[in-house]
């Protein structure tokens, strides 16, 4: 037989069966992944800035027209895909499966458009002679950090598109819940958030005047 104090302890959040921070384990797991991945990208961007500071003759290969205008369009496309993902999460919370899937397909289209534009940018740099080990503009580390960071980001976009496809299919068939769509949304917004640092640091700080 328990006394009143013992019962209070067993009924507390520490007694198990409770959701920390009043959220599901999938969502909490995604937040933890996002924090760890933030540190990965932070390390990459800090390494880039380190290389940049120690090399005053760092290449500036991106003219305003077309490279910066092109990368700005990529940024707007990625931001637009974040807005469609917000709409998908809102539709899922209303239990509107048809609209949720529709908005998720729109988000996938945004992600694929971003990848297409980015690959075009990459191939343009290949044509100019830039590779991961050397480039025609000077400091050889440029290729390593540029293709390393943007490649890492593009891999995240590709995984995000595949993840969206799986969740959209599962949610449309009633196998996944609205929480799964929300967790998918967290990942997608994180990919968008990372680009908000990659775009100014990699592109805007390397404008050719």
């Amino acid at each position, binding site marked *: 037989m328990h006394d009143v104090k013992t019962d209070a302890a067993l*009924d*507390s*959040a520490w*007694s198990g*069966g*409770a*959701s920390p*921070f*009043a*959220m*599901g384990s999938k969502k909490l797991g995604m*937040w933890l992944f996002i*924090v760890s991945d*933030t*540190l990965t990208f*932070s*390390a990459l961007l*800090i*390494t880039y*800035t*380190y290389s940049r*500071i*120690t090399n*005053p003759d760092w290449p500036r290969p991106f003219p*305003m027209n077309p490279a*910066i205008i092109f990368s*700005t369009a990529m*940024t*707007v496309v990625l*931001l*637009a895909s*974040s*807005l469609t*993902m*917000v*709409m998908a*999460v*809102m539709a899922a*919370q209303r239990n509107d499966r048809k609209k949720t899937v529709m908005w998720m397909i729109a988000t996938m289209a945004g992600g694929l458009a971003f990848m297409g534009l980015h690959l075009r940018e990459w191939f343009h740099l290949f044509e100019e002679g830039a590779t991961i080990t050397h480039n025609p503009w000077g400091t050889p580390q440029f290729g390593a950090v540029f293709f390393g960071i943007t490649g890492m980001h593009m891999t995240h976009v590709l995984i995000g598109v595949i993840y969206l496809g799986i969740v959209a299919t599962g949610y449309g068939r009633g196998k996944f819940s*609205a*929480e799964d769509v*929300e967790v998918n*949304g*967290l990942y997608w*917004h*994180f990919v*968008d*958030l990372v680009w*908000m*640092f990659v*775009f*100014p*640091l990699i592109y*805007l*700080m390397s*404008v050719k*005047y």
Partner: protein
Amino acid sequence: MNTEAHAVESHAGASVGTNLAIWIGLVAITGLEVFLAYEELQPSIMLTILIGLSLVKAAMIMSYFMHLKFEKFSLVLWLVPAMIFCICMMMIFFFPEAFRLLQMRPHG
């Protein structure tokens, strides 16, 4: 306290209008960043402003699109300070060394 009270809460988040306003704000800040790049500012000033604007954009995305503003504040306290601490540690290790190497470079 009953465990039922700890059940997963559904967070309504912001309205469509607010999310649209946030999106327009993000596009406007991106436009401002491109304009600053066009203006050919000194790299150190440019870097400071761009990092500041990127942090504002990150805060907007996390608060509204990722619903962090509508989650329990204890989650923010659990995630954000630890993350900032780790990033600061990386910067403390890297940057003094970077500036030292820059000063060691032969001039001319």
